[in-house]
Each structure stands twice: as structure tokens, then as C-alpha cells.
């Protein structure tokens, strides 16, 4: 009787909690196998793209709190996709310095092909890599090559990583982005109207 009562109370509590949504699929692929990881980019609108080609132009996006960020996603399998942590960094290959790091919990949704990836409209599940402004920049932060690295870790201690050189890129008509991503930009500077995106150049001579 006590067991029945417990079950009834549990069922009632579950019902009252509004937990009648279909169960979320957390285990994606075979967790006994190594985690496989691919990278995605997001233009802040509707466009999601795989990131496989070195020196791909990755759009810089204006976020709610100002500045310019890269939205980088993890596409993965063989993991618990509901309890992952994503560490994303951008490194200057000319100096080997890290420009910025973003660490966040992510929840990846199952896809029809057996992988998991962030929902396009869920920005919090994408790394919001804060690139501009950066007062320490020694060369332009957009239109130049930088090394992107992502480490995806799960609570059971497993992880996978991927890295690729990319070109953070402002839209050609986004003067604020072009201005704030220039080397030498000082916070609050007035921005000239004649800025152009430019093209990647070799590392400056030291």
C-alpha cells in the first residue's frame, strides 16, 4: 500500500510539475567509443555551416551586450549531450597568445543522422567567443587568420578537441565591427566611415 501511495504521489508530483514532455534523448551514439567532434559556425541569423576548410571566413556577430562575438557550435556523437562543457578559444598564430576564452555548459540536441548539435536559435548553446574589442590586440582581429580551438568535455571525464585556422570577418558594411576589431582601437573611439574589411596578411615581422 505504501508503495502504491508512493507511486501515486510521485506520478501526481510529476504531473503537477508539468513534466509531460517527451523524454529528452541525452545519450547520442555509443558512449563506449571516443567522442567525435566537428565544428559549426552561425551567422546570427538562419545560416549554420560546417567548419572544415582552413581559413574560412567566420562571421562576427553583434550580441545583446555589445561587442562582436563568434558563434561556434559543437557537433558531436558518442557522448551524453545533455551534460557537456565547451571550452572555446582563439589564438593569435603570430604571437601564440590566446586572444579570448569562453567556457560554458552546453546541451546538444539529437539530429536525424545520429549526431547532436546546438539548436540554431539557442545562442546560449553556442560558444559566444568575445573577439572585439580587445585592447591588447597587436593586429587586426578581423580579416586576419587566427587559430580556433574547441574542447568538448562530458561529466564522466571524457573529452574531444578540434582546431582549425579561421578568419573572423565583419560584414563589409558594419563600420562598428570593422572599427572595434582594428588593432589600436581604444574604447569609445569615434569610428571613421571609410573602413574596409581587408584580406589576410602574413604575420608582422618581429
Amino acid at each position, binding site marked *: 500500500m505504501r508503495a502504491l501511495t508512493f507511486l501515486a504521489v510521485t506520478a501526481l508530483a510529476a504531473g503537477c510539475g*508539468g513534466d509531460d*514532455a517527451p523524454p529528452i534523448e541525452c545519450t547520442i551514439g555509443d558512449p563506449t567509443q571516443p567522442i567525435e567532434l566537428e565544428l559549426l559556425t552561425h551567422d546570427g541569423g538562419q545560416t549554420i555551416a560546417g567548419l572544415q576548410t582552413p581559413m574560412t571566413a567566420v562571421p562576427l556577430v*553583434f*550580441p*545583446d*551586450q*555589445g*561587442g*562582436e*562575438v563568434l558563434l561556434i557550435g559543437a557537433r558531436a556523437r558518442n557522448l551524453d549531450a*545533455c*551534460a557537456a562543457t565547451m*571550452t572555446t*578559444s582563439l589564438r593569435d598564430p603570430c*604571437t*601564440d*597568445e*590566446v*586572444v*579570448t*576564452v*569562453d*567556457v*560554458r*555548459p552546453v*546541451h546538444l540536441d539529437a539530429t536525424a543522422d545520429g549526431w547532436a548539435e546546438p*539548436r540554431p*536559435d*539557442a*545562442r*546560449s*548553446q*553556442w560558444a*559566444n567567443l*568575445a573577439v572585439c*574589442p*580587445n*585592447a*591588447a590586440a597587436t593586429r587586426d582581429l578581423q580579416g586576419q587568420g587566427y587559430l580556433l*580551438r574547441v*574542447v568538448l568535455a562530458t561529466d564522466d571525464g571524457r573529452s574531444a578537441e578540434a582546431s582549425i585556422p579561421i578568419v573572423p570577418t565583419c560584414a563589409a558594411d558594419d563600420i562598428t565591427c570593422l572599427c*572595434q576589431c582594428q588593432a589600436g*582601437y*581604444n*574604447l*569609445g*573611439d*569615434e569610428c571613421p566611415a571609410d573602413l574596409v574589411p581587408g584580406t589576410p596578411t602574413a604575420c608582422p615581422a618581429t
Partner: protein
Amino acid sequence: MDLQHHAGRAPLVPVLLSDSSMRLACSLTVALAFVACSDPPEPFHPWELEVLTPSQGFSLRVPAFEVPAGHESQNCYFVRVPDLYAGADVLIDQVKTAINPGSHHMNVFRVKTLVDLRPEDGVPIKLGDYDATVIEGADDYQHNPCWQSSNWADWPLVANSQHSDPNDPFTDWKLPANVVIRFQPGEMLMVQTHYVNTSDQPTEYGAKVGINLYQHQGTGPTQDMGTLFATQQSIRICQHRPSVTYSGTCKFPNPVTIIAANGHFHKRGRQFDMFAWDGVSEQQPPEAARFYTSQTWDDPPMTRDLAVTPPDRGGVWWNCNYEWTPPTEVTCDDVNAKDPDQAGDCCYTFGGNTDIGEHCNVFLYYYPRVDSDVFCN
């Protein structure tokens, strides 16, 4: 409790009472005493802050205003730095604030690029002796420009205080010797107040803020103080993954000494840490590099008298750790309605309202400022 020090209290007047009135009065007294014993109000003495003469600096006073119970208020005041000495730069080496309880934050920024938050759109007001304008955000956190942080994303931080203890409403911050905040006369500042009048951060004595900026009196060489303001984008704290941590980094443009810091989050915030960061590693710095910890969301410590020197080309690393709790003033339906992902998991996302939104902000002060203050989004 010293009643005569309570703002807005009626004076105590002796009166003669009949027997029946006396019995009623005694009953009321006993009842009031019971109420008082079961829920004693915190003592609060209205603060006094000296008004500075131009040779001493300048004083800004946000006039007292009321915040309705269960509401929040965010106001943006615009005021120009006065000309204290024949057009010369104004050098400040001490900031003293006095803030009535219930304050969530008080920030001062230098106004730069104008987007949707404009001084000329404000209503005229006086901040002490100085002409100003104010845009009252009230608790319209979804639409009013005083709540939209992208409007001041390139406005360098000047100073801030999150301290409004009823027992000690003052923050007296003296900069290190010969370190100054440099203003140009006529420079536009924005003083932003955020008051919360809810059960967990009550504004029982009205909202009121005073700021004294003391002019540097020395004649020798000085170094300018720089500021670093950083925020973590797109945070999210959900019921079904209740314990989460977000981390970020921000670099300095030149070798610096960090002199003060405070972290800012809302009701789900459990621990805010800052570390000196080498600017090379992608992992959290070692414990020995930690220089700031806060476990308090409603009156976080402002650590002063620091002398932290991150490695050259380095910066700061921060962690914001949260634990999901239900809202206290609104419902999860309200929280869900604000969630851009519409996940239906009572997820708190970025936002200024403390009951329905979350923050992860770094306020940090250093010297020398060489070319630029620092903002990392």
C-alpha cells in the same frame, strides 16, 4: 532603534489619554511590541556626506525617490564633469559613496557613442549643484533604453558600488598614492542606479545615492587609473541542469597593477572568482592566482587595496557559478516567457531584472591606464 533618525517618520508627540484609551493604547503597545519582537526592523540612520567645495572636488547627489514594493528601478542620470580649475583636467584620487539600502548597483560611465540612450532625451534634474538629465527605466527592463546594456557598450567604466548596508551605507575608496581618475571638464558622465524593492533586497527607506569625487591635491607626477568592465554573453541557468559555471577572459593592453575588483551576478549566483591570467593558457589559472571571491549576490565585496600584477600580455580570468532556484517575485511562466530559446525549463537568461534575469559582470580597476580603458563582452 532611534526613531527620530528615520526618514519620513512622524515626530513623537506626548498626549493625555482616558482610562479606556489607555487600555487600548496598552493593548496596542503590547501588540506592537510583539510585532517588533517577531520581526525587528533593521536600524538605519540616514547618511550624511559632506558637500565638497570646488577645491576639494565635486559632489553628485541623486535625489531621493521611492521604489514601489515588488518592483525594480533602473535610472540613467547624465551630468557633465565641472570645470574645477580653469579648464585643467580634473584629477580624482578618492571616491566616496553613500547609498540607501536596496541598491543593487550604482555605476558611473563616461558617455561615448550614442545609440538609443541619449542625455538629451532625459528629463532635467539636479544632481546636487549640477544640471543633469535623467531617463527613468522604472522596471521596464524589456524596452527602456536605460536597461539595454548594448547602449553603453563602449562607455568606459569610471567607478561602481554594490554596497548599501543599512548599518554602513558608505564606500570610501582611496586610490593608491599618485594614482588618479582623469576627467576633462565638461566630459559627460552617466550615473546609473538600480534599486530593487523585493523581499530579498528591500528598499525600506527610499532610494538615495550620494557620490563624492575628491580632487587630487598633490603636485607631483601621477598615473591614470584604468578600468575593465567585462560581461559574459548568453548565460543560462535552467531547472534541469541547476549547477553551472561560465568562464571568460579579458586582456590588458599594457602591464598593469590591479588595485580593486568586484563581481556582479543575481539571485542564482553562488560564487564569483577572478584570477590573474597569463594570456597564453586556455585552462583556469591555479588557485594561487585567484585574487577575488564573492559568494554574495546582494552585497558582494569590493576588494580594495589589491596589488595584483598579471604577467605581461596577460589579463583576468573569471568564473561565475550558479545554482538554479525558483523566482521569488514572479513565476516560472514569467521566466519562460523571457527565455529566447523557449525551452520551458524555467531558464534564467541575461537580463537586468534580478528576479527574472542573470548577469556575470566584472568591475575591475588598475593602473596605469596608457591608451584605453578595457571592455570585454
